[in-house]
């Protein structure tokens, strides 16, 4: 092996800095890195492929899943399918979707030992924090759109666009039903961002990708358990899983949006607290190992 050295161009001591890299540069770096991950591409593929399969299987079953909200209506309207899927996904799928990338995105740098490599470049911890946070949120919203879009389209194509029966027994016309179904899925955006922030916090704090991914799902289960305990009405309001059920009010004879507003505020609270915790933790951390 022969190593040759070339003269490195020397900037002058007082030369003004060229355009400084910032969040944009860090964001491009993180997106390229995410796009190269098999896991992130696989999750998108799963979000696209699974809904039509599940819808087709449910549609083919003689006995609909009557014990689940909108389960009994899956053969009656293609709009019932995405609502059944939404109720099912809210239990653990949505927290998992939120955590797969977010729970790993900071901890992976610890795992690869690359913090020192990154933080000796021209971008600050703040830049990297926001780049990772925006990437995780953006990616999760993309997965949500693909998952929701696939589910709604599959329901309409496989079952049909019949009017939907409301939760109080009223008939909802096809066009209105579609709008309400899309709105119902849209209401999960805020809690999904909340779960993303929770996963980001765990990713920063634990420095362990497996924990960052699994813990939000477990925490989601625990919240659902707490939410089902009678006598904890006040606690239930502050759980991050409660906003995932706030769409029910849209399908009543007289729609009510109070739970949606509360859910939005609760999700925002979780998001702000978790992101602030993650940010401060990353800013203050001594990078000694990774």
């Amino acid at each position, binding site marked *: *092996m*022969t*190593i*040759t*050295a*070339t*003269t*490195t*161009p*020397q*900037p002058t*001591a*007082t030369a003004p*800095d*060229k*355009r*400084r*890299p910032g969040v944009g*540069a*860090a964001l*491009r*770096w993180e997106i*390229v*890195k995410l796009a*190269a*991950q098999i896991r992130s591409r696989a999750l998108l593929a799963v979000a696209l492929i699974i809904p039509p399969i599940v819808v087709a299987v449910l549609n083919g079953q003689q006995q609909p899943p009557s014990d689940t909200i909108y389960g009994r209506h899956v053969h009656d309207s293609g709009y019932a399918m995405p609502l059944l899927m939404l109720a099912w996904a809210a239990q653990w799928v949505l927290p998992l979707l939120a955590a797969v990338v977010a729970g790993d995105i900071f901890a992976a740098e610890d795992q*690869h*030992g*690359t*913090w*020192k*490599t*990154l*933080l*000796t*470049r*021209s*971008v*600050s911890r703040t*830049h990297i924090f926001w780049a990772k946070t925006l990437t995780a949120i953006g990616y999760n919203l993309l997965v949500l759109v693909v998952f929701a879009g696939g589910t709604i389209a599959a329901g309409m194509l496989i079952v049909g666009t019949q009017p939907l029966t409301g939760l109080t027994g009223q008939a909802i016309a096809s066009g209105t039903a579609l709008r309400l179904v899309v709105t119902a899925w849209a209401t999960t955006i805020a809690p999904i961002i909340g779960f993303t922030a929770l996963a980001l916090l765990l990713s920063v704090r634990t420095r362990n990708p497996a924990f960052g991914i699994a813990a939000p799902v477990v925490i989601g289960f625990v919240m659902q358990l707490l939410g089902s305990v009678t006598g904890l009405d006040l606690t239930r309001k502050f759980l991050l899983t409660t906003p995932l059920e706030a769409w029910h009010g849209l399908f009543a004879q007289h729609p009510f949006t109070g739970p949606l507003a509360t859910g939005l505020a609760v999700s925002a609270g979780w998001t702000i607290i978790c992101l602030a915790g993650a940010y401060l933790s990353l800013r203050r951390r*001594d*990078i*000694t190992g*990774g």
Partner: protein
Amino acid sequence: MSDVLAVDAVGLTKTYGTLTAVDRLSLQVGQGEVYGVLGPNGAGKTTFLRMLFGLIRPDAGTLHILGRTWDEHGIRALDGVAGFIESPKFYPGLTGRKNLQLLAGLDGGAGRSRIDEVLETVDLRGRERDKVGGYSFGMRQRLGVAASLLRDPRLLVLDEPANGLDPAGIRDMRALVKRLAGSGLTVLLSSHDMAEVEEICDDVTIMRTGAVVYHGSIAALRAKAPEQAHEIHTTDDERAALLARAAELEVTRLDDGLAVRGPQPQIDALVAQLIGEGIALRRLTRRETPLEALFFMLTEPDTDPAAPELAITGAAR
């Protein structure tokens, strides 16, 4: 060269609980210098470099890097600075070139030709399309240097760049660092290898358990070094020791043989005398170099660096 010091550390201190990793470290590195920070493992070298790169905050003291400080300039403190701490790490699932592209993106980007140039510099052309996960340790070290050069640094900081390399890799890495230093780059080299620092650096700070035990030029250090030590194995070590002491050589009994220290002519005379006395010489080997011996004297835990014979702080800047 600019009057601004490349590195100006004054009273830097970092503690972890009851452990003082760096204790009131002061050192100055001028631009264009090739400067060594030397010490055994745990001496505080890497902790100092972490503070330099802003990875950890000092508990006390000030640190200017090319005239900038972390407190005043934030990440701009690293403008003109590049390097790596411990072994450089990359994304194993990406190719060498992709890793360099990504890292260059964090500095505002680099063209294909520039990446080709640094890959050529570290002799990684032809392997840049391989995933880093398949790279040898030495290749990753060289990729680390390539990633550093992409920043067009004025100050290159290398933490034990030859650590873990095979002899050929060590030779090539040292040659690379020397050539980079020859191009006018300021090089701050951390090492636990006296020979490496002696070969590459002009000035050195030697650390032990967080504190500076020597600071000055290699030339001044060399002047303070003890005589060369040899290890002698004979058929009669008892008599050999007596003869060596009579020749005013410093003698230490080893489990097997003797260690003798003194000027080369006296060693030569002793060898001749041993043969003349009918004592067969079974082995004569050089022990550590004088500078290495001095390094051990300065840094080994059972020696007191403040002892008069070891208080050898070099010329002040």
